[in-house]
């Protein structure tokens, strides 16, 4: 994080500052020189350490919101600094806040805003943001003024007129997105409520800043010099600033989308463009005194669709994590500085009546405002907001750093009561963040607010939602009513016809479809979870896997990689089985270790948890044992599909060529063992080894097993007992000893990269289709399937594995029965099973295997290998 900020400060330095000032930037953008920045940023860096600490201690943060802890920590740190240096060293500077700390947070929330949800609720959000903020500002300001006039504010230092109080009211009514996000992200209320509160807090910042500026200029003018025209100007500037800011945001969103369309050859700077243009949007809006928050928000919301379609997968990941990191660090720094600033007593003056009055009024008027607005809004909303929602919304009005920064910005010579206002603001921020932030979670639980169930998006859901959209649009068309759906439909058509075509790459545009996207994402997720092998993903989702490459083959995405890696374990197994077949006592252990080794690596790489702060749950390690057992079975199944598809491909001949030397080494290596390698099996052998090669890229073997352990482990007769792999201690790599062809991975990789994308997808698609076609005809379970299966030799390893697996996961419906009599009979017949016939029967069998995954209960599944003849 510090590094990123450094970079940013350097980036800022590069921008020519002179031009901004010339153009009438209302805030002095560059009050401190480069040296000042240098001095400031290193010190900010170590503030992230406590954040990391908090993240570690989840127990604390599950009760106390992080923002509270950070403020408390800031208080503590500030106290120490104050005690040592006698004056608060580090203050939250408004300029730093607005120029460096706020933009990442706003961009993050804009970019990752669920745009559909946002636009669905835009009416409510806008109402709360605009009307609500105006209401809050005016009522709070007026009430405080009344309090002052009534003589309740004892301290004579509070010299303020109506305008001062209105100014204060405007800055204190800003519901802060940082605080709201920090609290509500942990509370997990339902998404409608969340988007309304959060959207409001985002947009009302803009309103607040505008109001603040208007009142500030009024105060500076002095009440005597304000004419009626000025009020009109104030109102006009309000609209101008917010709409102008939005327009700037849209403009830059358009630019950004357009630029990313042409970055195909400069992939590495794609993320940079995203950040840079968003930041330029912020600065540009700031420069012409438009609402920069709105600019960044809308830039983020609007560009996302096109940018995500244009940039590469890696850039997408980079953007995502960089943005989240920047936002988190900004947030941390803000709250810490808030704590530190509060300690410096020289900056503020206390007036009890003002503080208490403000606290009371902001709570009261927010509640009243919410209730009133909801009353009106519910007439227009399809899903009315009920009382509980209203309570949460009024209570969720957390004030935060924006209010604080605004109050610090006040000019002491113009606003006489600034010190009092500062004190009040600090108290209000502390109260809302700490007290409300602490109590909102229990409140939500107590009120039984509908929580959001964080279920993963399903394909069905997406399909139905699309169907809904079309149905609703159609119904509106039919009745001739131009409502929301009508316009949305029209917009989508416009977008499809013009915008997308203009802003998206041809390749991206062709495939652009939301359903496809969900399908694609689900498949990637399946692949990831397949690699991850939580083991809890039910089988059905996985079935979608083989069809994935149809997209892969068309696009440049990394699904192939995922596929490849997900398949790799399986292929490795088989290779081991094939080659070390002779020493059966060894093969189990060897395979286990190879598998285990390959299991570790992907899991480390794809800890696919996308929470803002927590990237990887580390409890997985201890699940290794269980997961491993489940994996093995699955991987073997996958292997079958992968392998046999490759078998049927046209590249067979070439594969054979490539595979032959391999085979040679294998058989040479195994020459001591009494193994009978049939000539007819050579082709298959080569195929399997080739498959293995394809899938091998990027996997580093760390399988280990000592020979002693392997030998002492099992007796040749104990075929039906699965040796536990997990007790074998780490030792010299088995793969290096046993599998000599592992050495030449370098040239394998070359082969892989050129071929895999072409071979696998097509064939897997084919197999998939076959499986589906058999799925249709499954109503009458065909007898032919049992026939070949009985003749087939069941691999002993497989025979054991499902048993152990079924012990591990008895609760899952998808565990497969593995009738032992079949395998026995299969083994006895194995010698006589002809090779060629097997090849032909392969596909139907494959298909049933796919079936069986869905049909575990009704149809016992038999895992067979058609390699019988090798023995």
């Amino acid at each position: 994080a510090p590094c990123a900020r450094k970079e940013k400060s350097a980036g800022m330095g590069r921008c020519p500052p002179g031009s901004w000032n010339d153009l009438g930037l209302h805030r002095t953008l560059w009050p401190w020189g480069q040296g000042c920045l240098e001095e400031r940023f290193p010190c900010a860096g170590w503030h992230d350490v406590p954040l990391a600490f908090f993240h570690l201690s989840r127990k604390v943060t599950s009760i106390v919101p992080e923002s509270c802890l950070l403020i408390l920590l800031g208080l503590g740190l500030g106290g120490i600094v104050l005690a040592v240096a006698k004056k608060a060293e580090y203050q939250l500077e408004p300029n730093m806040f607005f120029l460096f700390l706020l933009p990442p947070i706003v961009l993050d929330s804009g970019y990752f805003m669920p745009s559909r949800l946002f636009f669905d609720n835009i009416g409510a959000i806008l109402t709360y943001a605009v009307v609500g903020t105006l209401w809050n500002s005016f009522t709070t300001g007026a009430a405080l003024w009344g309090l002052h006039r009534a003589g309740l504010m004892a301290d004579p230092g509070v010299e303020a007129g109506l305008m001062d109080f209105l100014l204060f009211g405007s800055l204190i009514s800003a519901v802060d997105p940082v605080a709201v996000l920090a609290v509500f992200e942990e509370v997990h209320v339902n998404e409608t409520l969340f988007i309304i509160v959060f959207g409001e807090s985002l947009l009302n910042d803009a309103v607040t800043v505008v109001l603040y500026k208007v009142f500030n200029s009024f105060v500076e003018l002095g009440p005597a010099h304000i004419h009626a025209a000025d009020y009109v100007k104030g109102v006009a500037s309000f609209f101008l600033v917010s709409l102008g800011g939005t327009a700037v945001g849209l403009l830059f969103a358009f630019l950004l989308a357009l630029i990313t369309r042409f970055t195909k050859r400069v992939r590495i700077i794609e993320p940079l463009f995203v950040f840079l243009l968003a930041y330029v949007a912020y600065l540009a809006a700031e420069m012409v005194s438009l609402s920069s928050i709105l600019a960044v928000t809308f830039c983020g919301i609007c560009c996302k669709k096109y940018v995500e379609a244009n940039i590469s997968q890696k850039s997408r990941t980079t953007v995502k994590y960089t943005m989240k990191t920047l936002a988190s660090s900004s947030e941390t720094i803000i709250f810490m500085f808030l704590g530190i600033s509060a300690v410096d007593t020289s900056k503020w003056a206390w007036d009890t009546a003002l503080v208490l009055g403000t606290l009371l009024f902001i709570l009261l008027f927010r509640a009243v405002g919410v209730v009133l607005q909801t009353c009106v809004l519910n007439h227009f909303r399809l899903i009315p907001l009920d009382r509980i929602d209203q309570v949460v919304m009024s209570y969720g009005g957390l004030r935060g750093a924006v209010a604080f920064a605004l109050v610090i910005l006040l000019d002491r010579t113009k606003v006489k009561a600034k010190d009092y206002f500062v004190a009040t603001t600090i108290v209000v921020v502390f109260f809302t963040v700490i007290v409300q932030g602490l109590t909102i979670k229990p409140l939500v639980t107590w009120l039984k607010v509908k929580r959001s169930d964080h279920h993963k998006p399903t394909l069905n859901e997406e399909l139905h939602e699309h169907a809904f959209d079309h149905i609703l649009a159609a119904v509106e068309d039919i009745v001739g009513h131009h409502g929301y759906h009508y316009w949305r439909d029209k917009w989508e058509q416009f977008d499809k016809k013009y915008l997308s075509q203009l802003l998206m790459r041809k390749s991206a545009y062709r495939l652009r479809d939301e359903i496809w996207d969900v399908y694609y994402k689900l498949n990637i997720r399946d692949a990831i979870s397949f690699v991850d092998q939580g083991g809890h993903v039910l089988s059905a989702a996985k079935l979608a896997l083989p069809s994935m490459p149809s997209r892969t083959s068309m696009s440049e995405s990394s699904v192939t990689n995922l596929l490849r890696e997900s398949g790799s374990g399986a292929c490795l197994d088989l290779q081991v089985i094939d080659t070390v077949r002779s020493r059966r006592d060894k093969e189990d252990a060897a395979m286990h270790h190879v598998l285990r080794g390959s299991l570790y690596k992907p899991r480390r790489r794809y800890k696919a948890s996308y929470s803002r702060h927590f990237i990887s749950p580390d409890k997985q390690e201890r699940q290794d044992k269980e997961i491993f057992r489940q994996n093995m079975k699955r991987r073997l199944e996958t292997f079958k599909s992968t392998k046999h598809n490759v078998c049927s491909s046209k590249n067979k001949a070439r594969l054979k060529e490539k595979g032959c030397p391999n085979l040679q080494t294998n058989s040479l290596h195994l020459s001591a063992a009494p193994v009978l390698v049939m000539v007819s099996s050579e082709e298959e052998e080569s195929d399997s080894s080739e498959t293995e090669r394809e899938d091998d890229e990027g996997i580093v073997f760390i399988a280990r097993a000592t020979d002693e352990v392997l030998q002492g482990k099992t007796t040749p007769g104990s075929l039906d007992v699965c040796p536990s792999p997990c007790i074998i201690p780490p030792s010299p790599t088995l793969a290096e000893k046993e599998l000599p062809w592992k050495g030449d991975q370098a040239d394998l990789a070359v082969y892989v990269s050129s071929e895999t994308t072409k071979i696998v997808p097509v064939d897997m698609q084919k197999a998939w289709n076959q499986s589906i076609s058999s799925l249709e005809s499954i109503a009458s379970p065909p007898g032919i399937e049992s026939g070949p299966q009985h003749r087939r030799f069941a691999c002993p390893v497989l025979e054991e594995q499902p048993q152990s697996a079924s012990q591990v996961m008895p609760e899952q419906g998808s565990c497969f029965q593995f009738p032992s009599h079949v395998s026995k009979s299969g083994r006895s017949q194995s010698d006589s099973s002809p090779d060629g016939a097997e090849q032909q029967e392969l596909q139907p069998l494959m298909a049933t295997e796919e079936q069986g995954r869905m049909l575990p209960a009704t149809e016992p599944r038999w895992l067979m290998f058609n390699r019988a003849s090798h023995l």
Partner: protein
Amino acid sequence: RLCRQLCTKAMTPLSQKSSGTSDQLHQPRCVCFLCSKENFDSIPDLEFNPIRGKIVHAFFDKRNLRQESDGLADEINFEDFLTIMSYFRPIEMNMDEEQLDRFRKEKLKFLFHMYDSDHDGKITLQEYRNVVEELLSGNPHLEKESARSIADGAMMEAASICGPDQVYEGITFEDFLKMWQGIDIETKMHVRFLNMETIAHCY
């Protein structure tokens, strides 16, 4: 055109029915309202709707019209039209749990009937594929193959939710309900006819 105008006129009583008062339902001027499929097909705005056929079909589906018999109606009158429209009613604040549940089921039934084109009470794989193909027909660059694979993937997913047997016979309505658990259909299948300017047309 005619249909559309008539439909527009239908708005007033329609919205009243939606809100529960059906007093003005049988006003004479609306009784003569009859629609045939051709009328629907001639609505220009529908032209770009990828699942146009299915939707229009749903309007003439006798199951949706709460009639005993099966099959398609040739024409629907105004009352039928209102019946269809009532599927798109928004929920109201004062509904209790039971009402909400029934409400939800009705909406889902409409959708289910739309998918179940052969009226056998099951959504088979083929039917589902057809729906998906139509849904994706708006994008000319996606081939049928991909639509199929999406439908298949969705079917698998459905199978994992409702139990594996169902895939072969198709999704029944009970399974369909199961699939929708946890998804707020109440918040989605609504049309709000707020704009009452059409009253002017009527009078």
